[in-house]
Every structure is written in structure tokens, then in C-alpha cells.
């Protein structure tokens, strides 16, 4: 019986081939658009994660408890020697570096600006971040404690060039003001608004002196391997890295931006899915309703012959399901083709900025298993929902009236 219903439904769909193909194509285009957008957004997100983690943040960071909430300079990492021993001993930590951080002002001969001051260890920093590679003018930091790096936007704003002298002023841990004379050694470009526009980088020893925090750290930045793997295994990774009085957080926890970006992308994809599939559903309702309307007399005949109304409903729902399968197949094929093309060729978004992170390379769309499970399933679900009304309409046809209209 089911096979007969399937065959009957398939033949009914093929009666008006053009209409069926157009409807399936509309569904397919909708699905292919979703697959493409998902591939693009996944790629953007990965690019942003890579840009942020590799550029500066690292995969995880250690701070003193309360430091990130208050930013108080006195909240240095508890027992830094123990932390460093733990990090060095951990098999999961591929690299780590120590940082001192403070709000400061930078003063040139002509200008004065507030900045974020970072004291870094040049050698280990280069293993965590792209600070060394970000130098576009001048040179990277060395053991010379008078050298200073600053973001290119800050340099442009203050009209500073490599070799210019500047004065940094920051609060000392003891409450006084520390000042130091530095020489611009290099200008860096990260493609991240806060690092390019508001940050300066000096040797950690110079920062220790300036802030009166010898041997201390505000932050340890760690590299732990693949970012997706870090998030997936985070609970297992975190525990061995924890030390008393300090917090260990991954890059997603550190950056509210990532969390909001993930949520925003989910919402954006959800809204887009609803709009696209809603439009597709209207098309399906129209097609099926027209199809049922045109065959009113046929349903009248079937009902007159003693066909159960449930069988009629199932018939229309079977046609709907077949239409959904055709649409999904077409959409998956088209979406795979388009994604495959842009996986290889990419799209040039260089210079575009997302939440302060510049897209610096071509964007290559990505395949995810979810794309081929979630969206097709949602499309089939929407299509079946759309088929309910025409199915009910068909099953409620009054045979005598349908036959009278046919015979007149």
C-alpha cells in the first residue's frame, strides 16, 4: 500500500513537471544559500578565532582571581614561579609567555595619548603571538630595554616614526607615578583595533621597573594546540593548569566578543533560515494547493470509490515529502558545488572588519557535517508542515460536490 501511494504520488508530481521542477529548484536554491552562508560564516568565525588567538590572546590565559573584572594593577598572578613550573611541566602547553599590563600615557614632543602598556618577553612572546611578525616598520624588541613598539594607527595619530623618543607614564604598584624614556623601535599592524590603535609594547624588564613589579606578571598567555580542540577538551585541559589564587580561562571565555559573535551568528543564521524557509514554505503551499485544487474531482472520485480520507491525506503528504526530497537533493548538490568552488577559490574580503578584527586573508568557505544534517532536516520539516493544509483540504473534499462540478 505504501509503495502504491509512493508511486501514485510520484506520478502526480510528474504530471506538471515544470511546476514541480520550479518548486524543487526554489527549495534547492534556498537550501544552497543556507549551506553557502553557513560555510562562509564558519570560515569567518574560524578566521576571527585564528586572528585573535594567534595574533595576541593565545588559546588560554592565567590571571590573578579578580584581575580581569577590576583591572587593578596590584592583582598580580599569585606565586608566578609555581605557575611557570606548572606550565613548563604540562604536556598540553606548547608555549607560554609572561606579560605585565597597565594603563599608561604615551607622550611625544607634540602629543599625549592614553594607551594600554604591555610588558613582554620578546623571545617567548614570539612563540605565542604575532607581535614579531606584526612589525611593519623598524625592528622587533630585543634585550635592549629602551625599545618600544606601538600600533600603526597610534603612530599615525601621534605622528610618530621609528627612532622617535617617547615618554611612558604609568602608576607604580606602590602608588606613585613611574616614568620612562623609550625609543620607538618598531611599528606594528595586527588588524585588530585595540592593538593597532591603543597599545604599546616594551620589554618585560622595563615594565617591571616602570611599574615597580619585579618578577611579577599580570598575565600568562598559553598556546595549547588547535582552537577547536581547546574548546572541546577544555575541562580536561584546565584542571592541571590551575594554581591557587589564579584563574585559567580559554580564549572564548576571555573575549566576550567571541561569545557574542557566536551568539550573533547563530541568531543571524536562525533568522536567515526562518526567512528563507518561510518563503520556500509559501511556495510549497501554493504549489500543493494548486495541485489539489486542480485535482478536486479526482479526490472526489477516490473518496466516492471508498478511499479513506486518511489515505488521501497521506497521498498529499507523500507528494510533499517527495517534493522535499527533490528540493533537498537539488539544494545539497548545488550547495556542495558552490561551497566546493569557494573552498578552492575563496572570496576576497581583505580589509573588511568584523567587530574590530580585520579579515586579512581570502575567505574560503567551509564544509561542516551539521550543514548537511541540520538545514536539510529543517527544510524537510518546514515542507511537511507546509503540506498539512493542502492535505487537509484534499481530505475534506465533498465527493458529490466535486463530481457535480466535474460533470457540469
Amino acid at each position, binding site marked *: 500500500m505504501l509503495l502504491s501511494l509512493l508511486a501514485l504520488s510520484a506520478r502526480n508530481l510528474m504530471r506538471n513537471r515544470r511546476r514541480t521542477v520550479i518548486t524543487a529548484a526554489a527549495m534547492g536554491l534556498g537550501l544552497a544559500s543556507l549551506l553557502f552562508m553557513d560555510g562562509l560564516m564558519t570560515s569567518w568565525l574560524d578566521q576571527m578565532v585564528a586572528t585573535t588567538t594567534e595574533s595576541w590572546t593565545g588559546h588560554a590565559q592565567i590571571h590573578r582571581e579578580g584581575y580581569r573584572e577590576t583591572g587593578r594593577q596590584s592583582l598580580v598572578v599569585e606565586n608566578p614561579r609555581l605557575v611557570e613550573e606548572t606550565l613548563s611541566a604540562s604536556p598540553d602547553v606548547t608555549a607560554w609567555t609572561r606579560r605585565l599590563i597597565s594603563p599608561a600615557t604615551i607622550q611625544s614632543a607634540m602629543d599625549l595619548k592614553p594607551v594600554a602598556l604591555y610588558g613582554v618577553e620578546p623571545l617567548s612572546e614570539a612563540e605565542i603571538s604575532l607581535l614579531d611578525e606584526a612589525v611593519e616598520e623598524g625592528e622587533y624588541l630585543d634585550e635592549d630595554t629602551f625599545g618600544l613598539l606601538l600600533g600603526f594607527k597610534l603612530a599615525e595619530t601621534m605622528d610618530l616614526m621609528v627612532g622617535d623618543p617617547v615618554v611612558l607614564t604609568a602608576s607604580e604598584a606602590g602608588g606613585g607615578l613611574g616614568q620612562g624614556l623609550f625609543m620607538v623601535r618598531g611599528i606594528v599592524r595586527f588588524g585588530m583595533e585595540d592593538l593597532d590603535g591603543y597599545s604599546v609594547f616594551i620589554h618585560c624588564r622595563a615594565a617591571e621597573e616602570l611599574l615597580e613589579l619585579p618578577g611579577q606578571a599580570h598575565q600568562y598567555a598559553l598556546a595549547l594546540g588547535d582552537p577547536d580542540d581547546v574548546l572541546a577538551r577544555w575541562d580536561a585541559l584546565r584542571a592541571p593548569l590551575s594554581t591557587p589564587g589564579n584563574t585559567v580561562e580559554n580564549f572564548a571565555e576571555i573575549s566576550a566578543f567571541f561569545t557574542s559573535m557566536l551568539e550573533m551568528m547563530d541568531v543571524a543564521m536562525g533568522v536567515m533560515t526562518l526567512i528563507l524557509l518561510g518563503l520556500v514554505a509559501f511556495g510549497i503551499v501554493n504549489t500543493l494547493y494548486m495541485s489539489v485544487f486542480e485535482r478536486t*474531482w*479526482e479526490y472526489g*472520485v477516490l473518496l466516492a470509490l*471508498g*478511499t479513506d480520507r486518511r489515505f488521501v491525506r497521506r497521498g498529499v503528504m507523500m507528494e510533499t515529502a517527495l517534493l522535499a526530497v527533490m528540493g533537498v537533493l537539488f539544494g545539497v548538490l548545488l550547495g556542495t558545488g558552490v561551497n566546493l568552488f569557494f573552498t578552492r577559490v575563496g572570496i576576497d574580503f581583505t580589509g573588511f572588519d568584523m567587530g574590530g578584527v580585520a579579515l586579512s586573508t581570502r575567505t574560503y568557505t567551509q564544509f561542516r557535517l551539521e550543514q548537511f544534517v541540520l538545514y536539510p532536516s529543517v527544510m524537510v520539516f518546514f515542507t511537511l508542515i507546509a503540506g498539512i493544509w493542502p492535505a487537509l483540504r484534499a481530505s475534506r473534499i465533498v465527493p458529490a460536490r466535486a463530481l457535480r462540478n*466535474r*460533470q457540469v
Partner: protein
Amino acid sequence: MNRELIVTRNLTKTYEDNGVPVRAVRGVDMTVLPGEFTALIGPSGSGKTTLLNLVSGLDSPTSGTILLNGTNIGDMSPRELSAFRRNNIGFVFQAYNLIPVLTVEENVEYILLLQGMKKKQRHQKVMEILEKVGLEDCAHRLPSKLSGGQQQRVAVARAMVARPLFILADEPTANLDSVTSGRLLDMMKDLNEKTGMTYLFSTHDPRVMERARRILVVQDGLIVEDREQ
């Protein structure tokens, strides 16, 4: 044992046409016995088709009783009525009403499929009836590839294949030429005589009247004459 196959008692049907009540059937008492070859005749709009629709349960009466093989169909639920039609009534319509996407064989087979008969048995029964109506060579053709007369023969085969209690034929020859009509009616008459199948026609075709053994004249929703010939 009740020998009456179709019984109506004081059957009425009133419907609204653009807000105007139309009394299509006005207190019809009718009895049809098994094996009859009966024609309801009368002018267009006299209530013949409405009477057939009421008798088959396709339409519900405003008042009155319909007993089919002793069962009051007014007491049946829609689902029971549907099952009753499937198992006991064959239909032949004026416009053939074959399902266009099904082949001749599948159209005839459809009722048996609904009845849950096994495929092999279905095929055998279908081929038997197609042979009786002379269409065994057309089994795999679509209705659109057949002439009007052939399509109506398929409709007769579809109506008869499940061996229903009776066949209701609403203007079966209205769309056919005289030669084809004559052949079709001869075939139905022959089947009636050989199988004892009961036929109730609605018609104003004189060829049907010539062949009918009993004629019920319908006028203004009433049976005004009942004669045997």
C-alpha cells in the same frame, strides 16, 4: 431474509442554491431488488443524480431513510460509510472519472488495493474483468490513450471488479456516440444477465430505456411512474 437491496423511505433532499432553497428530492419511496437492471429517467434537474448520490451515501438526505442490503446508512459513521461504498457499491460516472496517472489495469485494481487484496490475486481478477469488457490488450495504457467508449468500459470494469452489491451508473452514455453507447449498454446488460449484478442507472438516453427491465420516472424530485418492461 431481506431480499430488498435498496430501499428508500420518504427520502428528501433540500439544498441552497445562491440562498434559494431547492427541493431536489421530495419524499421518494423506492425499492430495488437484487439483479435488477433499472433506469431512473427524467429531464435534467428532476433529481435523478441527487437520488443516486443519496443512495450511495455520497450526499446526506435532509430527511428519510436509506437501507442498503438491510443496513440503514444513516446510522453509519463517515468512515463506515466509506468502507461500505468500497465493499458494496460500484460507480460508473458520466465523465468516466478514471484517474489519469494510473494505467487501465491500475485504475481497475485500485478498489481491490483499498480492500487489501494480495497483488497476485488482484492481477488475476483485474485481467478477468478486463477480458470481459474486451480491454485485456489495453491493460498498460493510460486512460488518455483510450477512446471515450473504451474509457467507459474501463469504468464499468472498475465498478464490477470487486463484485459489489450493486452498480450506480450516472448518465454513463451521455458522452458517447450512439454506436459506442449501444455496445457499452449491451455489455452491461450481458454482465447483468450472466453475473446477476444489480444496475441502477440515471439517464435520459432512450437506448438505456430500451434495455432496462424496470423504469422509474423522476419528475420534480418525485418518482411519478414505476413500470416494468
